[in-house]
């Protein structure tokens, strides 16, 4: 996983609440068996005027000129700014892959849906929850000064606006540590294999009916 320490970049204002993961990456692209290549179809229904299908050359499609990510300088944005309950709906991690593949390193919003929030940390995308009035202020600053860069400092848990205003954000200490170090969760957990086995040994006695394992893939 790509570690995250500090990042400075352009902020794209997506002035919508309840942005769902169906909107971030529509279902037809979930047929891919890969983790990459979702960037060109991020926000597909809003971003293009023609319907999209997997396998198309998306650079040849008709862009919606009114959509924020089609406008300069936001087509080079690396920080996404949105309203409350960002990432609600389907658990599809493809939504996070679409954002990172587009080039986003962070999303700032007043609140996030739980599964999206979790998925972000697994992929080096930093979801930052700021107060509603702080998000409002950032929308104002971006509107007055499009293209001005915002700086995110994860170790110090701050977002610095172009006018120098600094906002502090909260983050779970374990998640922060994993993100800064770019740690692989699975390797960490496998370091506790003996404890997992000990738990299983105890549970087989307590709830044996949960250890009646299914066999093979084609058997009856």
């Amino acid at each position, binding site marked *: 996983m790509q570690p995250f320490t500090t990042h400075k970049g352009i902020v794209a204002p997506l002035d919508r609440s309840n942005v769902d993961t169906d909107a971030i990456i529509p279902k037809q692209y979930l047929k891919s*068996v890969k983790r990459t290549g979702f960037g060109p179809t991020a926000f597909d229904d809003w971003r293009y005027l023609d319907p999209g299908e997997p396998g198309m050359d998306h650079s040849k499609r008709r862009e919606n000129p009114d959509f924020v990510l089609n406008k300069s300088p936001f087509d080079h944005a690396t920080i996404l700014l949105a309203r409350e309950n960002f990432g*609600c709906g389907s658990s599809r991690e493809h939504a996070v892959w679409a954002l990172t593949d587009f080039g986003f390193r962070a999303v700032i919003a007043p*609140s996030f849906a*739980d599964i999206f929030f979790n998925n972000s940390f697994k992929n080096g995308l930093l979801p930052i929850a700021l107060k509603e009035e702080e998000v409002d202020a950032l929308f104002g600053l971006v509107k007055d000064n499009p293209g001005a860069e915002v700086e995110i400092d994860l170790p110090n848990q701050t977002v610095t606006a172009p006018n120098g205003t600094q906002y502090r954000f909260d983050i779970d200490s374990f998640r922060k540590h994993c993100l800064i170090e770019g740690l692989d969760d699975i390797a960490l957990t496998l370091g506790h294999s003996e404890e997992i086995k000990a738990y299983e040994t105890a549970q087989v006695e307590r709830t044996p009916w949960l250890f009646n394992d299914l*066999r093979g893939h*084609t058997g009856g």
Partner: protein
Amino acid sequence: MTGLHEDKPMAGKTLYEKLFDAHVVRQQEDGTALLYIDRHLVHEVTSPQAFEGLRLAGRKPWRPGAMLAVPDHNVPTTNRAGGIVDPVSREQVNTLGRNCQEFGVKEFPMADLRQGIVHIIGPEEGFTLPGSTVVCGDSHTSTHGAIGALAFGIGTSEVEHVMATQTLLQKRTKTLQVRVDGDLGPGVTAKDVVLAIIGKIGTAGGTGYAIEFAGSAIESLSIEGRMSVCNMSIEAGARAGMVAVDEKTIEYFRDKPYAPTGEMFERAAEYWRTLKSDPDAEFDKVVTLDATRIEPQVSWGTSPEMVVPVTGKVPDPAAEPDPVKAEGMRKALAYMGLEANTPMTNIPIDKVFIGSCTNARIEDLRAAAAVIKGGRVADNVTLAMVVPGSGLVREQAEKEGLDKIFLEAGFEWREPGCSMCLAMNADRLEPGERCASTSNRNFEGRQGQGGRTHLLSPAMAAAAGIAGHFVDVRQA
């Protein structure tokens, strides 16, 4: 450190706390727990990258026998024998089969009678059980909470984590009790209850919480009805929703293929009976609804919280004091092609979809058939379809002659799968088409680009199909 964690030594425990504590393998100082996962459901869309991750790291599944896989999102609902026409969908379904073979995971392939929507087949097979922790790379995993399980959706990275370690890193969430007390009126179903709850608390009302649904109205629901309620916990923002175990729960599992039998069943049942919140347990938040005031519901907008009783009207953004909310309502009305203040019963529909992990169990089909019997799909309705949740539901419905009722009325009777709930297969809305749908999400483009979804109960969807517009099923 191994063992149980006593968070609230003074007060009793909620059901969520009991389930969580019974699965803690170890706990870090910051409260992050390593939670043991008993049951892992797998489908073709969110698993290929996880299997690939295992392969790349040279890892094996920790306990393949705790996994059950089924293709459901991409499968066709017509002409199964002809296979999957779309080559991209076909490749994804084939990839699931190959991965299950390679890693020794049990799969119900497309031709298996037991194939169906992952959340329908879990309880149907007795694979998901009371007191178990259940995960799946699918947000509607909350469905299994209806049987007193701790069940929640995860992303693909977490799917890989569970495959490799049989555990997940989790922090305890806050607890929310939603109490629905009183008797539900005739024609008012589990779907109406959960839509009314979402209408009240909003799509983020349960974010950061595990919901326990309680109260006499919830207790009066069948296990299948409770599944419809818990299914949509995620539409209220909560990853997990659950209902305490009672005798109905225990009876439900008496004849399920993978459930324990004989003495082992009685031993399990004894434990299952403890799976309820203690009388003195404290919830972080409590919300109450009066069941007697819940009417049949229909959504009008592009978020499940945008819902009104069928007796109501399309809301007017001009009456909304919050400017951000009002703007959201305007966008929704524009997308849905609706005028404010239109009575819901004046809205004509183009299609009907009865199916999905919310409402494709046998009781849902019985409820729809009871309304349809002797009727005929309205002329303005171009497609009305019933998609059973599994091959076994389909078989049972045919035994009861429900298929004939649907077919005689002009409904199509399809093969099981997710179908038009998310339109990954060939079943979809065309731009501008309006659908009465028993599914769970009315997001923009959910059922097809430009499609307009109205969420409602199976009985209400059936009645709308016959009338050609929304109607109050109590008068249909």
